[in-house]
């Protein structure tokens, strides 16, 4: 039984928007139909046109005039832009998947939140940050076993993969990620650190996750290791290049997990695992949304 693909629009024709397009072109549930930008010279919009998408050069206003072209809208611009666009998308009856730190809607980390959220009731979800997508699942895996007093993450990313948006708003990264460690990861306190590394060839995204647990026993130890392995597989189901950099260690009530993310190399180079993990998570979220839309008969 062939199901009609759900139509998607991408706002933002930069690196993230373009990478998203390539991932959507591969999806068997989603079809990218529109890319929305504001720069008629944008390389992303030219590529979109080449791949059969409708390019819109006049921003959200241009899309509002042809809103029938898509049901799900990915926001790959800036927090400021999404704060402006979100109410418009809501009025148009679109589902918004927000890859900016605007956090208009609830945080969405697919490996964790899809079990707990009623996705069909949400019209706007926020994809946290790249660091959040890479680390929150591991914190949640541990907090599923034992109470987590404190979670701290250090994300190292290559300088080349950090665009001007990240650089001008680095506090948004640390603050939003720290909040997600608590709200989604289940830690009582959270802290996030980001380091940009200019080494050549560019480094892969690497995250060190430190989790202080409230109690320890051999059984807890075994359960944590088991749960971390399970969670790794869940994340790998939508981010192939997500893996342990070293075996998780538990010492003095602190669990240390190091993960590395190699990108898929769709549009962005493989070292950009940090960008890949958030676009992959967004596509996964849209696919699950699609299932709920189909079962409710929205798109049929």
């Amino acid at each position, binding site marked *: 039984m062939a199901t009609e693909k759900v139509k998607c629009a991408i706002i933002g024709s930069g690196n993230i928007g373009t990478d998203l397009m390539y991932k959507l072109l591969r999806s068997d549930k989603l079809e990218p139909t529109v890319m929305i930008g504001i720069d008629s010279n944008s390389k992303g919009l030219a590529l979109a046109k080449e791949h059969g998408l409708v390019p819109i050069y006049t921003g959200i206003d241009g899309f509002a005039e042809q809103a029938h072209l898509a049901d799900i809208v990915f926001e790959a611009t800036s927090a400021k832009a999404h704060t402006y666009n979100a109410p418009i998308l809501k009025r148009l009856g679109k589902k918004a998947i927000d890859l900016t730190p605007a956090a208009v809607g609830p945080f969405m980390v697919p490996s964790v939140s899809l079990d707990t959220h009623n996705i069909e009731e949400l019209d706007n979800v926020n994809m946290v940050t790249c660091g959040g997508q890479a680390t929150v699942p591991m914190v949640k895996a541990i907090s599923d076993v034992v109470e987590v007093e*404190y979670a*701290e993450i*250090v994300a*190292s990313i290559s*300088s080349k993969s950090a665009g*001007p948006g990240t*650089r*001008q*708003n*680095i*506090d948004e*990264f*640390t*603050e939003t990620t720290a909040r997600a460690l608590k709200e989604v990861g289940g830690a009582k306190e959270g*802290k996030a*650190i*980001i*380091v*940009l*590394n*200019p*080494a*050549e060839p560019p*480094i892969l995204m*690497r995250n*060190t996750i*430190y989790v*202080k647990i409230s109690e320890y026993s051999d059984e807890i130890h075994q359960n944590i290791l088991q749960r971390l392995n399970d969670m790794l597989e869940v994340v790998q189901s939508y981010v192939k290049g997500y893996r342990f*950099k*070293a075996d998780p260690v538990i010492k003095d009530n*602190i669990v*240390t997990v*190091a993960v590395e993310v190699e990108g898929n190399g769709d549009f962005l180079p493989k070292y950009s695992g940090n960008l890949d993990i958030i676009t992959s998570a967004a596509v996964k979220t849209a696919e699950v949304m699609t299932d709920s839309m189909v079962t409710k008969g929205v798109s049929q």
Partner: protein
Amino acid sequence: MTQSNKIVFNDVTLRDGMHAISHQYSVEQIAQLTKLIDDAGVDIIEATHGDGLGGSSIQYGFSKETEKDIITTAVKNAKNAKIGVLLVPGIGTIEHLNNAREWGASVVRVATHCTEADVSEQHIKAGIDLGMDTVGFLMMSHRTKPELLLEEAKKMESYGAGTIYVVDSAGALTMDDVRSRVSLFKENLHTKVGFHAHNNLSLGVANSIVAIEEGADRIDASLAGMGAGAGNASLEQLVAVMNKLDIPHAVDLYKVMDAAEYVMKPMMKRPVQIDRLSLTLGYTGVYSSFLLFAERAGKEYGVDPRDILTKVSEMGAVGGQEDWIIGVAQELAKEKINKS
């Protein structure tokens, strides 16, 4: 010597020195040291976790005292010196800076890796909006060419920084390296220029003097060199040399000699000195605060900490990447087993 303006001393005993004591100064020690440094005539006293505001963490080590207690204790005990804080974007945030300002800090040094100045824009602007003496601090300056370092400094100038530092975080610059960087800054920037040394190659004082010869306006130093790695330029040693060279400043030599000898040195947990490990930092160009981490990891995994530092240097680690050390130690330990 054409130097005529007074050199501004920025003491880092209570900030870089935090690394050397694993961030464990007590408020009593902070009070005592602040009084001594202030009374000796130092212009600015920086007091924060070694990694700056928000640095207290599993990654870098937790401070013994809260950020508030560290800063307010320094503020309360300084009669003349201004109290400064370090802010590394990615670790500390503008919210941390707002608090520090409220607690009485009036100088902020916004620090980035030498090629990443554009992450400092928001924070430099925030420091200026708060009415603070705002400084750009280009760490690991040995890792880029002087001309490229200047480009980064110009970015910080465009954001409004009033002083920009060449920071030798790894103590890896030789004297001509310092000369070329500081002189380029002086020729091309309209800001004041500063220099921050580490003594890993035994060039802390010499490099600071070279920076002054090239026109640097601000110089970092600490009592007995208290700081990461082999420490910073030692305040008492630098003052002695500056006196001999007739370089004007406001610091009393005997007072800093006494404070270094009778107060600072007895507080040290591990002597701040040039030894095979701190020398390796300067030799391979590794961020100085990696010293204690590499030493501990070496013991734990039974590998030579010099090999850890060398490998970390080859990987291109920058300041703040202490988490790479354990990973490298584990890999070296595995290699060792495989070989035997």
